């Protein structure tokens, strides 16, 4: 999801819509509208519809879905004498450019353009790593030859919104953009640069433009450069930009390019042939070929019918359309999701729970019969609490309180008991849940292990008090008595802990927590805990 903020009155005027209809129309185009300020709207655009990140793009889509304009929006493209010479720039090899004539700017429009540019930077541009855009006042550029090249870091220019000449290094260390994006494309002390023929900087992608070609409300014509690490993304970005300017009434001018292609923007059109039956099969509808073609046109694409097939021409601004299933979705949108008549749901087969779920349920019932309150704790825990060594540590935790995945329910239980020392005693609680343990059989090296844990905390407790409950639960689950084998573990008091076994399989352990561990958890009352390995019981 991408959110853009637009002036409400301006947008409604552009779309020719009443306020009350806007939400409905945009809802059907995957978007949502929220009123923010007095005359301000926040619009949520889905991340596949980058063409809708500017008011003109929204207008193009709305015109289609309301049936005002059908088929591809065709824009005038004229050749120019501008030329982009592309040198080897290893860190950011791709660059394209275009010219836009007859643009009408005011403060609001400039804001919209900057927002459009920024949102493209964040989405298709992957925070300028993949694609970066420079928008210039064409008439402030000297000469017709522009060069995409690289410059050393001491190369000087006046960055945007500054009156001081600075070196690229200074820009990186002292401007906000420099700090954010400075290191993306620096390689061997060289930075990519868009230059005039005389060597004056127009922009230092992906960081900042020069102040020389800054756009303002008097700007009439634009020069746009797009650079990046992926040719398709660069070409698509430029196509999106010029298409939306053209939708706003401007004329697109092509720039001669010295590499990959002869001129840009490419205005890439894809052809897709879709079968009526495929679309209907996917949607569960029985639309005629003509109806499908109509819906395709409502989504601002051209459609040519050829018996039961439709040739869809995907214009440059619909970069989200890849295969026939994308067409199917657009047809469904134009048809209207709410127009689908839904059949009554029928189930062909029987559903079923996993055996472990059934066991969990039985275990919970028995523990409750034993008078234990069920608790539900977090899977994530504090690594310093996890007293075993083998646990999953998170590389990028949000807080140290949750920087590891529990490998036993005992630690969660102790943490819970520590929080409840002033509650009414006795405290008898249990939890059923998954822990993560190392596993050689798993392709990730780890596996979930479903366990149950029971605990009693009181001013005075006995081992038997818990053992008797655990014993009855296990007896009821298996119909035979478990055995107990003395064990010594450092988190239990010596001589007060046992492994629990069925036949020769250890299915759990029980014991009184050692004073050292109680201290570590700041618990001032004795605690007896049992942990049962439910998956072993399930076998």
């Amino acid at each position, binding site marked *: 999801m991408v959110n853009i903020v637009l002036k409400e009155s301006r947008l409604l005027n552009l779309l020719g819509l009443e306020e009350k209809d806007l939400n409905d129309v945009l809802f059907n185009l995957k978007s949502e509208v929220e009123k923010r300020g007095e005359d301000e709207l926040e619009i949520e655009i*889905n991340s596949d519809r980058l063409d809708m990140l500017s008011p003109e793009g929204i207008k193009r889509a709305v015109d289609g879905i309301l049936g005002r304009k059908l088929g591809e929006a065709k824009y005038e493209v004229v050749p120019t004498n501008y030329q982009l010479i592309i040198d080897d720039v290893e860190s950011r090899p791709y660059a394209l450019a275009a010219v836009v004539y007859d643009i009408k700017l005011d403060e609001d429009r400039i804001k919209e353009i900057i927002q459009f540019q920024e949102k493209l930077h964040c989405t298709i541009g992957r925070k300028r790593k993949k694609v970066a855009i420079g928008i210039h006042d064409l008439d402030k550029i000297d000469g017709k030859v522009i060069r995409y090249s690289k410059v050393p870091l001491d190369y000087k220019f006046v960055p945007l919104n500054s009156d001081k000449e600075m070196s690229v290094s200074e820009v990186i260390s002292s401007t906000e953009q420099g700090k954010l994006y400075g290191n993306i494309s620096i390689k061997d002390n060289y930075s990519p640069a868009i230059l005039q023929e005389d060597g004056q900087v127009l922009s230092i992608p992906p960081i900042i433009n020069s102040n020389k070609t800054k756009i303002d409300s008097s700007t009439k014509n634009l020069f746009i450069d797009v650079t990046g690490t992926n040719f398709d993304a660069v070409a698509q970005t430029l196509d999106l930009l010029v298409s939306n300017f053209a939708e706003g009434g401007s004329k697109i001018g092509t720039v001669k390019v010295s590499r990959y292609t002869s001129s840009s923007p490419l205005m890439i059109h894809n052809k897709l042939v879709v079968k009526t039956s495929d679309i209907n099969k996917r949607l569960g509808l029985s639309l005629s070929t003509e109806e499908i073609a109509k819906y395709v046109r409502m989504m601002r694409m051209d459609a040519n019918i050829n018996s039961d097939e439709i040739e869809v021409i995907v214009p440059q601004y619909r970069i989200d359309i890849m295969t026939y299933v994308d067409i199917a*979705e657009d047809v469904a949108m134009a048809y209207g999701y709410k127009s689908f008549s839904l059949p009554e749901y029928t189930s062909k087969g029987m559903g*079923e729970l996993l055996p472990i779920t059934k066991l969990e349920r039985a275990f919970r019932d028995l523990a409750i019969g034993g008078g234990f309150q069920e608790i539900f704790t977090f899977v994530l825990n504090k690594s310093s609490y996890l007293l075993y060594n083998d646990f999953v540590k998170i590389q990028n935790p949000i807080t140290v309180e949750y920087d590891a995945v529990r490998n036993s329910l005992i630690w969660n239980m102790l943490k819970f008991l520590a929080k409840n020392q002033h509650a009414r005693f006795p405290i008898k609680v249990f939890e059923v849940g998954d822990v993560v343990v190392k596993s050689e059989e798993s392709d990730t090296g780890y596996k979930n292990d479903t366990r149950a844990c029971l605990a009693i905390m009181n001013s005075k407790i006995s081992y038997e008090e818990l053992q008797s409950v655990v014993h009855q639960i296990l007896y009821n689950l298996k119909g035979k008595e478990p055995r107990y084998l003395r064990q010594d573990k450092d988190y239990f008091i010596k001589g007060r802990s046992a492994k629990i076994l069925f036949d020769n399989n250890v299915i759990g352990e029980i014991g009184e927590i050692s004073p050292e561990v109680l201290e570590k958890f700041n618990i001032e009352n004795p605690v007896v805990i049992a942990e049962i390995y439910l998956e072993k019981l399930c076998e």
Partner: protein
Amino acid sequence: MLSENEIKIIDFLKKKENKSAYSTELSSVIPETAVFSLAYLLKDKGYVSVKEEEKENIILTKEGEERLKEGLPEDNLINFLKGESKKIQEVAKTFKDFNIALSWARKKGLIKVDKGEIIPLKSSYVSPEYVVLKKISSSQDLSEDDKKYLKELESRGLIEIKKNKVLLLTLLKEPEIRPAITYLTPELLRNKEWTKYELKEYNVEALPPFIPLGKKHYFKEFLEHVKDVMVSLGFKEVKSDFVEMEFYNFDMLFQAQDHPAREIHDSFKVDGKGELLNQSLVKRVKEVHEKLWKYSWKQEVAKSLVLRSQTTATTARVLSTSPNKEIKVFTIGKVFRPDAIDATHLIEFHQLDGLVIEENFNFRELLSTLRAIFSGIGIKEVKFKPAYFPFTEPSVEVYGYIQGLGWVEMAGAGLLRPEVTEPAGVTMPAGAWGLGLDRLAMLFLGIKDIRNLYSDDIEYLRNRKVEY
């Protein structure tokens, strides 16, 4: 059985001479207002006889109180004269209430008056009326002699005599008193010994002491309920692990390797690399990524470990087994995403993911399935919004109508792209969805702070009303 107050009355009577007492006397042991009804209860039970009597109740008037304090005027006169005669005029000047004193002293023959002089016949005097007055004020019994003066005292306005109804209770028999015990025992019952004992009464109206109750957790119950809904709709349960390879969490779901969701801020990274055992699946996933997303797909990235950020990873795991028959499966489990923890955000929460692979499955069937699931959970009204997910097309967001809240976004769903199903060798259409359960549980359980779904406060758990 006798009540505590009834026993008090009997005890009082026992101590009295001839075992009788007036109801007025009982006010020293029980509230006076209760005496009458208790007396008749005891009479009905045969313990006492009750006689109603009219009893005179004598009280001092205000003047009577004064006289008691200062003495009767005639007595004071005698004591003033100390046996000597004095001129009337002289005495009248200084003596308080002289006329009253003179009149009563003459009437009682305590003085003579002759030639303007008072001649005392006694040198000191205390009237018997004064003694009676004193007795009345201290509630002493009056003798027959004393009673002769009552009329006079009343006429002098020193006392008031009122008649009251009182009860005279006389103890007829004493209740049988047996030794008291607290516990009935098997022995007592077996030997009939219990008849010899009185079982102590409890304060049955007092609040009981606390005992902990075994109780299921409300949020777990909600999750189990959703499982039951899925089973009732014909779905089989599946599950997979928290630690997952990016391959299943992202790549198989056609999420490009530079997709923002794969960035460090959007999933928890775990040390180590997984092993991709099915290399032909890997190869097909690589091909489809490179063909449509146009970048160079790296197996090393796909092997990176994360805590799964969506239970759709479980769906991907199911797909990776190339199911070639029709299936309907679901999973409910924890997913993990970095976020700020507050009243509406946690870094771990639950999702329900479902997958249908059926020969004739389509978008319409999917919408109908989603409607059925929500209806089962308790959301009867849903609407569908076009949406975008990398792995489904068409995609849909499901909104449910919640009373008091309006339309709430609840799930994302869609038909899996062929780019997802085909590399896995699945040829039939497939629908999938993911549904966040924590928010939904909050709505159903009336919980405002998401952290209360996992409360670590035992008293909160104990005190929470059970849902049913």
